[in-house]
């Protein structure tokens, strides 16, 4: 921190002032003048100019400080990730680890009984985003494929349940695997045309794909009931028992807890498997991985398919939770929020996605006053994250294989 002092030298202050002036000019029309061409009014908001001035002065100083720190740290791998620290702590002290685990279990079980229905509902939403994040993390974080149409698979799951219910009266539990399966198939269908595309084209094409699915849902009234959507979708039952609203809320919460555990279990096993390694190799270098004998086609298809699986599954839960769906729930912004969870939490890291979903979904709920700034802040955070901490909050650590020379090769 001591070298922050040098930013108060005359030269640096001058720099900051120039930048401040620039931002005052830059933001002048949009920040200061508010027009309403319907009522023909113009409001001048000079106060905003002062806010911009003070804000940009502080931020520009901070920006240069952070930039310098970043360039000083470049090359040095001094940052130990949060995940690594926790892991080491757990290894040193197995009892602490067990204790912490037990506390988490108790907390998770007690949560819906200790809090209100409203809180339970929010937490359920957060858990849904954990699974969505973990699914997209396979594609973006591990596979390195920027996918901007993920919400389409989510929609497939939701509409699968809704339509199966409307037409055939099929229930939640049967729809759950069908929704996940259909999303997986759609994932494969999408993967095939985009196989040859480079990263940036892939982003646009997946975005287009997501939009196409949404536009079809909006316009094909005979199939999807159009923009008005489908209502009265039943909540999940347990062996044929129908719950009252409050019980159902708690029940869905526990379904989500189970699904999160299930997802983490599967994803953990996959990411350190033969297949999981190919995903990461593809992210690191497509040409090199092909030259090392990896079938890139197959690898792309598996990341898309397995990523889509989770979205389809959660789509079914979403339909059951809200009992009403329409295309407005599956816009591009939905895809981008899930992307934010992955990126901000930490690409490639399961723990990171959990943290990311917690921050991005729960914080705005509790900081209602800020909720209108949510997307603005997400956007800013995405940029700052990429510039200053591209690994996310929780930088991923790779599995350490222990090679026991005596018995040779005991993988952890």
């Amino acid at each position, binding site marked *: 921190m001591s070298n922050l002092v040098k930013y108060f030298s005359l030269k640096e202050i001058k720099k900051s002032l120039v930048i401040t002036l620039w931002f005052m000019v830059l933001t002048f029309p949009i920040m200061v003048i508010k027009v309403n061409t319907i009522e023909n009014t113009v409001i001048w908001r000079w106060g905003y100019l002062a806010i911009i001035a003070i804000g940009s002065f502080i931020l520009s100083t901070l920006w240069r400080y952070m930039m310098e720190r970043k360039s000083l740290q470049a090359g040095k791998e001094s940052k130990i990730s949060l995940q690594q620290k926790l892991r080491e702590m757990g290894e040193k002290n197995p009892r602490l680890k067990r204790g912490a685990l037990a506390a988490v279990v108790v907390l998770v079980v007690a949560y819906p009984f200790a809090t209100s229905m409203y809180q339970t509902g929010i937490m359920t939403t957060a858990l849904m985003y954990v699974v969505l994040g973990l699914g997209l993390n396979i594609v973006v974080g591990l596979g390195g494929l920027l996918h901007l149409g993920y919400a389409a698979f989510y929609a497939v799951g939701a509409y699968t349940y809704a339509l199966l219910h409307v037409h055939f009266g099929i229930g939640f539990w049967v729809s759950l695997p069908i929704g996940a399966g259909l999303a997986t198939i759609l994932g494969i269908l999408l993967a095939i045309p985009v196989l040859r595309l480079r990263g940036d084209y892939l982003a646009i094409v997946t975005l287009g794909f997501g939009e196409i699915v949404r536009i079809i849902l909006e316009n094909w009234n005979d199939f999807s009931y159009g923009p008005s959507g489908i209502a009265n979708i039943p909540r999940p039952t347990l062996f044929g028992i129908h719950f009252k609203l409050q019980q159902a809320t708690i029940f869905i919460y526990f379904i989500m807890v189970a699904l999160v555990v299930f997802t983490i279990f599967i994803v953990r096993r996959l990411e350190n*498997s033969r297949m999981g390694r190919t995903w990461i190799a593809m992210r690191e270098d497509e040409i090199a991985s092909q*030259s090392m004998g990896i079938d890139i086609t197959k690898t792309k298809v598996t990341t898309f398919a397995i990523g889509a699986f989770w979205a389809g599954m959660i789509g079914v839960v979403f339909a059951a939770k809200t009992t009403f769906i329409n295309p407005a729930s599956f816009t591009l912004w939905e895809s981008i929020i899930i992307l934010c969870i992955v990126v901000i939490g930490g690409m490639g890291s399961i723990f990171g996605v959990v943290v990311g979903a917690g921050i991005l979904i729960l914080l705005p709920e509790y900081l209602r006053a800020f909720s209108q700034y949510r997307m603005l802040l997400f956007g800013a955070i995405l940029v700052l994250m990429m510039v200053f901490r591209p690994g996310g909050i929780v930088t991923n650590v790779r599995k350490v294989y222990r090679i026991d020379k005596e018995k040779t090769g005991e993988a952890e």
Partner: protein
Amino acid sequence: MVPILETKNLTMDFGGLRAVDNINFHINEGEIVALIGPNGAGKTTFFNCITGVYKPTGGDIFIAPDGTHSERINGLKPNIVTEKGLARTFQNIRLFQNMTVLENVMIGRHCRLSAGILGAILRTKATLAEEKKVVDDSYEILEEIGLTKFANEFAKNLPYGAQRRLEIARAMATDPFLLLLDEPAAGMNPQETKELDEMILHIRKNKKISILLIEHDMSLVMSVSEKIFVVDYGKLIAEGTPDEIKKNPEVIKAYLGDETDA
């Protein structure tokens, strides 16, 4: 005996530029052969054509892993070529930077393994055994190449010379019958180059792998290779033993034109 790798009139055009021009090349089992020539002569492009990274615009490539039955491999995908037993390194190092050294080698083993998605999820006995074996095998390769102390480091954190060696380790993990090394000594100091020299000979002897080598370091080329092919402007201008090549006037002319590379 047929050559284990043979090209006939291999040609590669980029738009108007002919980077590889009707090259006839062959290497026999157990040989160490060097491919030399000034920068931009088309050596890397030659590698890329053989390994399926580029699809050659003309000519044929044959391999004969067992030394008897030859098979045409033009236009096969790189991963298939690797499965057939050709493995390569890259001139501009292309490691998986954010994977550990051990994992880099494990990726090399990938095409010799069979575990699928269900095996991974259920952790079947076969999968666990295979995983254990791949760790052991990869570690063994690291021992051979002398990289065990870095096993759990990220590849990007390795010193330059070690990165070059890891490229070789990763290629060897694919169980090739022919190893193609693209400027393995580039950027190495004399000590490292000497070690590399020994390593190449060791690989041939112990692993029964033939080696095709692109290299600018003439002392390395002359000391390890039995045969040298020289290309210039995409054309093969000479072939022969190191002694023959040293005396060849065409070669001397090509190199005098571009002395810095010699």
